[in-house]
């Protein structure tokens, strides 16, 4: 997003001819493409809200270990499948968040662990409490987290905002780390598809002829193949002994190999419509090299469209990774992603007993929706002459 740092003022009318403000009209005539885009984008309230949501999610990516309060890998059989603990914000009239202590016991008839809250014992929740050690932003070693409870690893004094999974690991903390992986995998994947899409779409649109026909046929073929079975086949063939990092990159490559077609289509369309524009023809006439014509004159003029198309391609990537991991073919534990977390919710019986295991579905839905609205807004804004 290009954010013009010029003080536009509240009256920077983005509608031509709004009021008698000749000044604002003038502003529109001299505004750069990015400014026009920003003005149009700002009018689309839902898109702006979605942009904030997306930014929020990426802040979670950056500060996952700060927002988590428990070691996401610390398992404890004694705390298996514990329901979420309710946080009480006010202790009497005073603001002092606390949770009630939870006692677990094995039901002697069903052999399940049952938990009940013990209202006699309050565990205060502290802001910036101490927890496991990590490096904030990967640099500063610290043990402070957004929230925490006194008592550290004392089994009786714990807080589980979203409950625990089968192995007794804290779902909230795992969700924070999962967000990091799920959202970056989308970014890496989309970058790769973008490179493929721009190069192939560009070739197709700029040169036309045989290259165009060939690439268009390839796109058509790829689009008429059901992708998930193919992804599954490729993902299943990854060697079992690969490290998390290797699998991570292999999965992004697999996903982006089949996902570049939409981006290529957009790029090609733009190239086709720009090829005959006056400024491109004149650039060619004054003797610009082909590379210069493409990268200095043509690409900047449809950069905004590419950004919009990329935003719309991201949610599909995120969903693909979630789906693959959900099936157990994508990232594998101990890696954490939304899909990996959702694996525990595959079974209806489990979900019926501990519905909080389905919670990782919520960020998936929210982020996909936010990206869709944001992309829609950007796409509308990218076309300054649009409706």
């Amino acid at each position, binding site marked *: 997003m290009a954010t013009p740092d010029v003080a536009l003022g509240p009256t920077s009318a983005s509608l031509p001819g709004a009021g008698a403000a000749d000044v604002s009209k003038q502003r529109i005539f001299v505004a750069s493409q990015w400014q026009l885009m920003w003005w149009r984008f700002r009018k689309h309230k839902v898109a702006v809200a979605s942009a904030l949501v997306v930014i929020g999610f990426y802040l979670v990516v950056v500060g996952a270990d700060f927002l988590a309060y428990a070691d996401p890998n610390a398992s404890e059989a004694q705390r298996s499948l514990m329901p979420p603990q309710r946080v009480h914000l006010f202790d009497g009239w005073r603001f002092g968040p606390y949770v009630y202590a939870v006692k677990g016991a094995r039901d002697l008839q069903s052999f399940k662990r049952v938990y009940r809250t013990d209202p006699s014992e309050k565990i205060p929740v502290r802001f910036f409490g101490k927890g496991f050690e990590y490096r904030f932003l990967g640099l500063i070693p610290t043990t402070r987290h957004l929230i925490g409870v006194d008592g550290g690893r004392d089994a009786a004094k714990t807080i589980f905002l979203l409950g625990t999974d089968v192995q007794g690991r804290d779902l909230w903390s795992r969700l924070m780390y999962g967000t990091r992986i799920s959202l970056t995998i989308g970014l890496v994947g989309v970058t790769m598809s973008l490179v493929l899409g721009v190069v192939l779409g560009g070739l197709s649109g700029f040169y036309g002829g045989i290259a165009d026909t060939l690439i268009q046929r390839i796109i058509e073929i790829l689009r008429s193949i059901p992708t998930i079975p193919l992804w599954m086949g490729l993902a*299943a063939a990854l060697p079992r002994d690969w490290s998390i990092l290797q699998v991570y990159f292999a999965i992004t490559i697999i996903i982006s190999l089949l996902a570049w077609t939409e981006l290529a289509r957009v790029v090609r369309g733009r190239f086709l419509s720009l090829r005959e524009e006056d400024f491109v023809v004149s650039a060619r006439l004054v003797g610009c090299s082909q590379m210069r014509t493409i990268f200095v004159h043509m690409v900047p003029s449809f950069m905004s469209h590419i950004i919009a198309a990329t935003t719309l391609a991201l949610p599909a990537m995120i969903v693909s990774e979630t789906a693959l991991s959900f*099936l157990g073919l994508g990232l594998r534990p101990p890696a954490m992603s939304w899909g990996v977390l959702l694996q525990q919710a595959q079974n209806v019986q489990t979900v019926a007993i501990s519905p909080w295991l389905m919670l990782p579905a919520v960020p998936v839905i929210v982020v996909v929706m936010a990206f869709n609205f944001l992309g829609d807004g950007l796409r509308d804004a990218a076309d300054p002459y649009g409706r």
Partner: protein
Amino acid sequence: MLAYIGRRALLAIFTVWAISVLSFVIIQLPPGDYVTSYIAQMASMGSVVTDEEAQNLRIQYGLGQPVYVQYLKWMRLIAQGNFGMSMEWRRPVTEVIGERFWLTVVVSVASLFLTWVLALPIGIYSAVRQYSVGDYVGTFVGFIGLAVPNFLLALVLLYLGFTLFNAHIGGLFSPELQDAPWSMARVWDLLKHLPIPALILGLAGTAQQIRIMRANLLDELRKPYVVTARSKGLTEIDLILKYPVRLALNPFASTIGYTLPYIVSGSIIVSLVLGLPTVGPLLLKALIAQDMFLAGTIVLLLGVMTVIGTLVSDILLVWVDPRIRLEET
């Protein structure tokens, strides 16, 4: 029109070829060849494969020869209807897939059908009654349909059905008819179970089609010929259905061909969640057990089925809309 269909058919053949290559790659990917893993598999089950048998298998599949020869041999076997052996099930692949494949076809076609049947009238309605309550409801449902991945939707519905109605909404058959031979009762049972999976699978596509139909029809409704027709006294229904809808169908039609691959893709995961007896769960099992002949065959069959489905809907569209016939591909 024949030229158009010919071009489409040629492309379809090309696509099938590409899919067969990709499926072959999937079969070839794991280390070791099929026969070594087959021998290991048999050994773990306690039976021994004689050298002679192994040799025969190697010759049959052309193992040890260049990759393209192996591919051609595989293709020849497939042309004879021999899809190889499933290692995990120790039965021919065709036998293992059998009914499951046809059920996949049934589920996919049902979703595609539902997509068309729902998207058209809803799209027309929300364009004609723009900004009405119905339009907003349609748009909202559409957004949900686009944003929620269908396997999560299936999971949520399953959970709601389980907790609210104490009913299991998954499966394609009632338990008592699960393994029964085909009969009218079983077909009826299938029809009763079909709507929910079909709806879940078709929702994303439906949402997209509603949006496309609505946008196109709105563009058409603003054109002067509509005003002319109205001023001449045509009834509203005749007017809308006869001209703008027909014109708006074109972009709608050209995208509907891409719906089938989505549905088939989605059916794999949704089948797992809902426990449908389609090839989806089978594919996952085969992949996890590295039963590559089974997996490759399933990918191949799904691909071919999609291509045929797309071709059929392409041809139907040419028949409906004369303008496509004249257009370049």
